Every structure is written in structure tokens, then in C-alpha cells.
């Protein structure tokens, strides 16, 4: 799907300072070499299976299916991975690649903290130094994850610039990378940024759809009618979609964070409210004002609180291969509570956006239809924030 110059249709590219150009070229060369290296792939598979607990389960949500009274619902349980989210897939791949490239230090941005925790974990496992940039606002929303990263031996740097959220953490990590390239790999957490990151991250996350395909074929003898995943930058979504892109009968649905609504300024729904732009190394859709100033986006979910979307999603939107819908805070919180009560599974508030959309469409679908929802992460980290949303203060 990637053009040789790192484009997805018109999207993607390498809009970065000259200082970083040789670093991304070196990364691309290394990746192109190792992606076809049997030894590298064997090592990565071993890490996936023995360390990260792959393959993750595809679970038939019987009670939810019966309750909604429509399509059969399966949950792809990325929340059961080591560290509690899909982020570990990409991080193990990139850390292994960085190690092969002779890098000794990983830097990363993080929103909810899941990617930061995954990077800190991989760094601990592989004996690498690790520094994570996290918006100061998010360090407060996700204090537990900050503690986890420090416990794992990483340094966490609160970012105070701009809106002090995910986009500022990305900017700060990019600045740090221009400052120290020789020994440092920037372990980008989503399918965004300059080429080759959107391709590398997608390839490492594509294990999700590869497994879904095998598991659903085993369980149902056919492909699903829809695959639903939440989208911030879009890594769990592209991972869930990738091996179905050529199967036109499978609807691919990305759920963006509408925050308080796409008709308000307090939203992070990029496809629904943004327009074409160039930012963080890529051409894609961004929430921005008429002069191209990047908008201070909002979502209850720190992981979806990003003003852009990965270039491959922008392309899938352009060619109408995937549909991107907006889900509000309120809908996501309701889905968070619903899945907990109905199936005994507490999803990440990010993943709850995907659950919310499935709750809307499943009842309208026939009982012989099949929906797969990717539960990208577990929701323990969100409990305090959701309690607060419901007017309850809890103290750990």
C-alpha cells in the first residue's frame, strides 16, 4: 500500500528538518533489510508469543450479542497483551530493530501512557535507556502510568509547551531526536510522523488483523461483516484493518473521539472536522484553524486526544475504503460501563469509543452478521477519570 516515497495517495511524506533526514533514511534501509530477515522475524515472533502473550484472544461476546439483539459481536482482546494494550506489538518490533541498528537509547511520546509504558517495558527487557515525553496534563490524568514507566526504569519528562497533551509530547520527542540521533531511536507510537514510521508501525500492528482473520475463519468459517476500532493516530485501527483492506465485503470502521461533539471546539475528530495539512512530518488531515494553526483538541481519552490522523487512514478515507465516525465522551463512557457490566471486561476509554459505535449499529444488523471490535487496551488506567466524569472522586 505504501508508494516507494512513503506516500499513501497524496498523504504521508517526510516533512521533517534536514537534521533528521539521514536518520529516517537509515531507519528505512534497516527496516527494509530486517523485515525480510528470517532471524529477525523469528526473534520478533518469539517475543510476541512468549513475552507479549500473543496471539490475543478473539472472544465471542455472547451476552452483549444477545442484549443488543443484532449482529454477532466478537472482541479482539488486545487488552490481554502484556502491558495491557496493543502498543506492545509495535514497540517490541521497533526496539528490536533499534537494537539491531546499534542504538542504545529509546525515546517516545505518550498520550494515555500506554505507549510510554510499552516502550519502557521493551527498554527494560532489552537493556536500553529510555526517555518518555508526556504532556503535563496527561501526567496528571494518567498518574499511575507515570509511576509504571519510572518503575520500569524510564525517565518521564512532563511537557509543558502548547496544550501539554499528546501533540506537544510528539513535538518534544522530535526536538529531542534532532538533538541526539547517533545512539537514539525515536520509537514513535502510532502510524504517523514521517515515512517510514507509518509503514513500520502498521506492519508491526498488522498482526492484529492477521490473527482476527485466522480466528474468525476458524470460529465462523467466514470473514466478518465489519471490523471496528478506535482511531487517534490510528495504530490499533490500521493493525485491525490491514489484512482486510483487499476484502471489500468487510466494512472497516474507525471511531474518532468527538469529545463534547463535532459541532463544538472540544473535539479530536480529525476526519470529521479537520482538513488537509502538513504537520509532525506528514501530509494528512488535521484539526486546524483557517491559517493552519493546529487546533487545541479535546477528548476524555488521552490516547485519542491528537489533532491528526495517520496518512494511511487519510487515504482509506479518500478512497472510501474505510469509514470514520465520531463518538462523544458521553457515548464512550456509557460503552465503558456497558462492557464492564455486560461482559465483565473493562476496556480502555479509547477502545470504548469502538464499543460505543458497535452498540449503535449492531442492533440494526441481522443476526447472521458478524462484527469484530478491537479492544485495544484495558481500562484500569481510566477508572479514576471515569469516576470523576460521573462526579465521584476516588483515591488509590
Amino acid at each position, binding site marked *: 500500500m505504501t508508494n516507494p516515497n512513503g506516500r499513501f495517495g497524496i498523504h504521508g511524506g517526510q516533512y521533517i528538518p534536514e*537534521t533528521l533526514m539521514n536518520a529516517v533514511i537509515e531507519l528505512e534501509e534497516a527496516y527494509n533489510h530486517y523485515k525480510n530477515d528470517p532471524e529477525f522475524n523469528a526473534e520478533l515472533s518469539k517475543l510476541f508469543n512468549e513475552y507479549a502473550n500473543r496471539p490475543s484472544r478473539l472472544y465471542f461476546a455472547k451476552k452483549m450479542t444477545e442484549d443488543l439483539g443484532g449482529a454477532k459481536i466478537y472482541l479482539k482482546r488486545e487488552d490481554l497483551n502484556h502491558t495491557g494494550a496493543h502498543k506492545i506489538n509495535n514497540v517490541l518490533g521497533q526496539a528490536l530493530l533499534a537494537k539491531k541498528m546499534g542504538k542504545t537509547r529509546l525515546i517516545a511520546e505518550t498520550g494515555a501512557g500506554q505507549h510510554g509504558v510499552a516502550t519502557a517495558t521493551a527498554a527494560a527487557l532489552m537493556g536500553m535507556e529510555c526517555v518518555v515525553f508526556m504532556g503535563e496534563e496527561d501526567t496528571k490524568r494518567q498518574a499511575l502510568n507515570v509511576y509504571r514507566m519510572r518503575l520500569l526504569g524510564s525517565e518521564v519528562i512532563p511537557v509543558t509547551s*502548547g496544550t501539554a497533551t499528546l501533540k506537544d509530547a510528539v513535538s518534544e520527542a522530535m526536538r529531542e531526536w534532532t538533538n541526539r540521533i547517533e545512539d537514539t531511536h525515536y520509537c514513535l507510537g502510532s502510524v504517523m510522523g514521517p515515512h517510514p514510521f507509518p509503514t513500520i508501525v502498521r506492519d508491526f500492528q498488522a498482526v492484529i488483523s492477521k490473527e482476527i482473520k485466522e480466528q474468525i475463519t476458524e470460529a465462523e468459517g467466514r470473514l466478518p461483516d465489519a471490523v471496528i476500532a478506535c482511531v487517534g493516530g490510528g495504530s490499533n485501527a490500521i493493525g485491525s484493518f490491514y489484512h482486510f483492506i483487499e476484502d471489500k465485503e468487510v466494512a472497516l470502521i474507525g471511531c474518532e473521539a468527538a469529545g463534547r461533539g463535532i459541532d463544538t471546539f472540544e473535539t479530536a475528530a480529525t476526519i470529521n472536522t479537520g*482538513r488537509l495539512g*502538513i504537520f509532525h512530518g506528514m501530509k494528512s488531515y488535521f484539526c486546524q484553524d*483557517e491559517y*493552519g494553526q493546529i487546533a487545541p483538541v479535546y477528548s476524555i481519552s488521552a490516547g485519542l486526544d491528537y489533532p491528526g490522523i495517520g496518512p494511511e487512514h487519510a487515504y482509506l478515507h479518500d478512497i472510501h475504503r474505510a469509514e470514520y465516525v465520531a463518538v462523544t465522551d458521553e457515548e464512550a463512557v456509557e460503552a465503558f460501563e456497558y462492557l464492564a457490566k455486560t461482559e465483565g471486561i473493562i476496556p480502555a476509554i479509547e477502545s470504548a469509543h469502538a464499543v460505543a459505535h458497535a452498540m449503535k449499529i449492531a442492533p440494526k444488523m441481522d443476526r447472521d452478521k458478524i462484527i469484530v471490535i478491537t479492544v485495544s487496551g484495558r481500562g484500569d488506567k481510566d477508572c479514576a477519570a471515569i469516576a470523576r466524569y460521573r462526579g465521584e472522586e476516588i483515591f488509590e
Partner: protein
Amino acid sequence: MSRISKAFENGKVFIPFITCGDPDLNTTKEAVLQMASNGADIIELGIPFSDPTAEGPVIQGANIRALAGGVTTDKVFDLVSEIRKESNVAICFMTYANVVYSYGAEKFIRKCEERGVDGLILPDLPFEEKEEFKPVCDECGIDLISFIAPTSEGRIAMIAKEATGFIYVVSSLGVTGMRSEITTDLPSIISVIRANTDTPCAIGFGISNPEQAAKMAAISDGAIIGSAIIRILEKEKQSAPKTIGAFTKEVKDAIRNV
């Protein structure tokens, strides 16, 4: 001959940078006129961007203050028209790709020509992505300034061969901001540039005083200073232009004959 090429005709060049609208556009105009009359050869006018990823904390601060004050791209174009009534100094815009792209690259670049802007500096537009902007720039006689960094190595010749106006040589790794010491082997970078082009080169990033500027100008064609000027604005606000003028004179005197 363009204003930029002319600026390099009489010895070493001083290129000060200022973020438009910090603390307000009138102060920017006064500061630009002060710099121009005190020996600045090319003025780098920063159009503020919400997320300036190539900037250190000082210039980030200026961007945030300017945007909070309501500066827009159109207001900056009007500022250029105001400056052009009183000065013929060479002017380059320094901003981020999205500011140009979002305005409409062609519309933006044609407006640069119409208002009297001579060059465009986009730190997040490397050689590989320039085709989107370069043809219109060429058509309008606007120099799209090329960057060469300490990490450019094998890329230097390729970039230098297509460079117009001047080459912005990045002194050090990292973002803009003041540094006590610059350790990059700049003379070897510059000798590769010289072997591939006649386009002059100026060094920027990390230069904050006349002594450093003189050192950098001695090995190249000029020096670029940004954060040190923003610091003066930060401190003196509306009364900064006079101090900035005096600082410009000091730097220009220091580099003139190195």
C-alpha cells in the same frame, strides 16, 4: 539581481530573526526598521505557528505570545507592505510548511512576490519534499532556502547544487536556541558546499553574541541570530526596538571584516 543576492555582495552578511507580533506587530515593524538601518542585510520574519517543532523554548515562547495576540498570516503580509514603504532590506519569511500549505501554497507564494518578500525558509520542508513549493517560488522569483545540517553528510552536494538565494547551515544538532559552544566541524561542511555551488551560505542555530557571529561569519558568508533577539523582546517588549538596533550594529561591526 534579487535583494538576497545583492545582500551578499558587500562582505559578510548579518541575518537577524524576529517573530512577527511578539509582543505586537507595531513593535515588530519598529524592530525591523531599526535592524535594517543598523546594518542587518537580510531580515528573517517569523510567521508564528502553533507547534514550531524546530524551535527551542525561547522562540516557542515568541510564537505562543504572537498567536495569543491575534497575529495571522494576512496581518503579517500587511506588515511586510508597511515595512516596504520605508525599507528595501531583503526579507525572508521563516515559518512551517502548514502555514504556507494551509493558506494555499500558490496563493501564499504569489502574495510574497506582490508584497516584496524575497525568500521562504521552511525548516520542516527537506530537499525531498520541495517540489510542492519550488516551481511556484521559481516562477515568482522567491528563493526557497535550503538547509544543510551537521548530519547531512552525503546529502550536502545534492542540496547545494539546487540551492538558490543562500544556504542555511545549521550549526549544531537540536533546535534553535543559544549555545555556549558550537563543536560541529563546520569548515569541512562548508568546503563541500563551496565545491558544489556558488550560492552563499550563512550559519544559524545557537549563535547569540557578536563574538560567536564573527567566528561563524569567518568560515562562511554570514551569521543568523534569532533567540538572542527574542530574549531582548521578551525583556523590553515595546521598548525593545532601540536595543535590538544597537545589538544589530554590534553584530554587524563584529562580522563586517572577518
